């Protein structure tokens, strides 16, 4: 079966700014059937590793596959929960410790659907998207991030 879907881009270069999150929230004020928004933000942690302290993560992705996968996940979540809106943004390139690298946003008439969908979306994004984080250390070494 051929698919003619056109996956939406989810990648943004560098960190996701709080202002862009505010804009995204404000864009929903015209959708007056929405009663609840659930948002998850991933922030780069400055973990201490044996090899040094994390000062940034450099993200890379197999973009074409990630966008197809994100679209597939998106469709599955829309089919499972009664959502009004769903947005996914993931950073590529360097994101400094303390900055936002993942922004997942679900909206629904009632809160439960928005919350459950957001949780599931984040789990699936972390497990299924071909994205890799290279943790840049203050020792000028790096280690590859491992998701738990």
């Amino acid at each position, binding site marked *: 079966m051929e698919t003619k879907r056109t996956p939406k881009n989810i990648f943004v270069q560098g960190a996701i700014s709080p202002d862009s999150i505010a804009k995204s929230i404000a864009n929903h004020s015209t959708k007056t059937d929405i009663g609840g928004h659930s948002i998850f933000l*991933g922030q780069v942690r400055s973990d201490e590793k044996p090899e040094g302290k994390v000062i940034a993560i450099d*993200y*890379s*992705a*197999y973009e*074409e*596959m*990630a966008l*197809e996968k994100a679209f597939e996940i998106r469709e599955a979540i829309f089919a499972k929960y009664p959502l009004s809106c769903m947005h996914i943004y*993931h950073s590529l390139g360097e994101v400094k410790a303390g900055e936002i*690298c*993942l922004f997942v946003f679900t909206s629904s008439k009632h809160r439960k659907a928005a919350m459950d969908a957001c949780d599931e979306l*984040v789990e699936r*994004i*972390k*497990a*299924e*998207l*071909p*994205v*890799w*984080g*290279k943790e840049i250390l203050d020792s000028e070494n790096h280690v*590859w*991030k*491992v*998701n738990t």
Partner: protein
Amino acid sequence: METKEQKISVRAFGMIAEKIGSAQIQLIGISTIDELRESLFDQFPDLKNMKFSIAINKQLASGNAPIPADSEIALLPPFSGG
């Protein structure tokens, strides 16, 4: 018409790309996943100790799947987005 001699292009990501020293390599005479692994392990013995999945045309491959001509092959270390 021997598919054994097909030339395939293999993309590598993350720590696999780092270990190989390249984001893209060309291999010849590969028509299954098992042949791909064998060829990779010959050229890059370090990969034997690394965990990675293989995607054929952006779909994760399982078992000893065949590799059709002109496939896009990718070597994917464990995902760590988010």
